[in-house]
């Protein structure tokens, strides 16, 4: 009787008819045949080993990790297709082509089996590779974006541009021209110099409340340095290195001269202290993350740039500075895109106001052709329009400030406004 020890077959390399290895015997299947137990098939390949160790899922994951799953992983070879007469050298009795039809599946083990075909493996690997590349690229992009959207102040403390005392009289004019009180004055009281903030500014992006900018050291900006104020006005960055929401018009103030910042700082220091902080902003969900303002700034904010057009006429150019920078007229007299940034081709052409609740008039020559420079200057002083009307709404508040400017500044504003090219009013 020829016998063979089956345990000697375990782990043995199986050779093809041509002597090529087709894998190792990892399992031997036997079934009852009457009173006998007979060998029915041999399992060859690494998945058979995983199956024997009840580690198919883990083994598959490991193979996938090392990208080795493309190898033929499981053959179920019938007993008569392997010659085991020499258990140390088992040999196939069939061809490799016949062997390819013996690739095995997994029978109800509740475990993931090997792929049915190499095509699936290739696609699976490609998807995973693509996913890995996507995740890596995403991680790199996130790091770069995190860096690029950081709030970086432009000026450092002790910046020499701001050395020396500011001019209070000029600071008062900057304060008026900048229309600071219109937003920062404490609502519900008549003193426009009590800058406790808190007025609610509704917008499609949430409700924003200008902060306390009084000289109070705790609740206001009394503890700020002049460079803190410069960074706020020109960079839109707070002393705590947060971005300001662009409801604060630093997009216009960014081209302020250092002297004006210094003078304004000196003047603000003289204003009364107001204790108490404004209620917090109530931004829309996405904008609750201040870092998102960094993305907005990347897209729409150009630090220290201005849209002013200069023509070497001293009055016109002074008007350009006042209109485009200090008085930030375009912030209201323009329409905005879906992200709340001014559409350049509608600059000064009016449209729906930033709050989305009214309509701001066009101040280009498309509508102001009938106005003279004097008409404009008079309106900025008295609020009266050439057709015997009066400006209203928030413009009335603006006029309260422009009325404090010297005649020369109102004339300069008028000249610049008269020079604006005509742009049709955008349709609401």
């Amino acid at each position, binding site marked *: 009787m020829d*016998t063979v020890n*089956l345990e000697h077959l375990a782990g043995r390399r199986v050779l093809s008819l041509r002597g090529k290895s087709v894998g190792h015997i990892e399992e031997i299947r036997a079934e009852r045949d009457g009173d006998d137990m007979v060998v029915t098939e041999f399992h060859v390949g690494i998945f058979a080993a995983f199956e024997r160790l009840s580690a198919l899922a883990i083994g598959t994951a490991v193979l996938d990790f090392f990208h080795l799953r493309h190898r033929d992983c499981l053959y179920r070879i019938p007993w008569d297709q392997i010659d085991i007469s020499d258990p140390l050298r088992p040999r196939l009795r069939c061809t490799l082509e016949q062997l390819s039809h013996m690739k095995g599946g997994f029978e109800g083990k509740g475990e993931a089996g090997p792929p049915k075909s190499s095509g699936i493996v290739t696609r699976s690997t490609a998807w995973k590779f693509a996913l890995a590349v996507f995740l890596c690229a995403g991680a790199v992009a996130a790091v770069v974006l995190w860096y690029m959207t950081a709030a970086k102040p432009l000026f450092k403390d002790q910046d020499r541009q701001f050395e020396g005392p500011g001019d209070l009289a000029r600071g008062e004019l900057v304060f008026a021209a900048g229309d600071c009180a219109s937003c920062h004055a404490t609502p519900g009281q008549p003193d426009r110099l009590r800058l406790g903030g808190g007025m609610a500014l509704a917008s499609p992006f949430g409700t924003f409340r200008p902060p306390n900018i009084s000289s109070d050291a705790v609740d206001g900006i009394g503890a700020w340095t002049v460079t803190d104020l410069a960074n706020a006005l020109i960079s839109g960055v707070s002393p705590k290195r947060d971005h300001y929401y662009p409801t604060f018009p630093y997009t216009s103030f960014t081209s302020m001269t250092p002297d004006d910042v210094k003078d304004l700082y000196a003047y603000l220091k003289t204003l009364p202290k107001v204790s108490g902080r404004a209620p917090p902003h109530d931004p829309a969900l996405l904008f609750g993350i201040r870092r998102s303002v960094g993305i907005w700034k990347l897209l729409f904010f150009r630090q220290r740039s201005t849209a002013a057009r200069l023509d070497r006429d001293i009055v016109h150019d002074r008007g350009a500075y006042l209109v485009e920078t200090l008085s930030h007229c375009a912030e209201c007299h323009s329409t905005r895109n879906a992200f709340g940034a001014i559409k350049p081709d509608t600059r000064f052409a009016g449209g729906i106001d930033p709050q989305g609740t009214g309509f701001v008039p066009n101040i280009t020559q498309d509508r102001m052709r009938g106005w003279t420079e004097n008409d404009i200057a008079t309106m900025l002083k008295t609020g009266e329009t050439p057709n015997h009307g009066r400006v209203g709404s928030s413009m009335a508040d603006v006029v309260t400030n422009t009325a404090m400017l010297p005649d020369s500044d109102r004339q300069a504003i008028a000249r610049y406004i008269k020079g604006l090219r005509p742009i049709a009013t955008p349709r609401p």
Partner: protein
Amino acid sequence: MDVLRDLLDKQVLDRQRVKIGKVDGLVAELRQGKPPRIVAVELGSITLARRLGSRPGRWMAWLAAWFGGERHAEPHRIAWNKVRDIGVDIEVDIDVHRTAIFDWQDWLRDHVIGRIPGA
């Protein structure tokens, strides 16, 4: 049944449920035109040594024969028809004391362990 997973290295119990060793080997008969038939399970150090290679197997067989005589020169073999149940353990219908499986154990008990005071 998966032979390597479900049989090999499993504990073997005799009819008294005495642990007599583990399935160290499985002997299959090769038949012309018929599938190999499992005819016996093997136990013992010789079978175990053979799994490491033919040379360790020969050394172990020589050693066993030198110590225990020719009776111990071959692995302990239990016919497959004596296998009663295959579960967590493999139960066989034999009396281990009628085999040579415990000879080494008995000799060790009588000549070494039994002479240790207090044992």
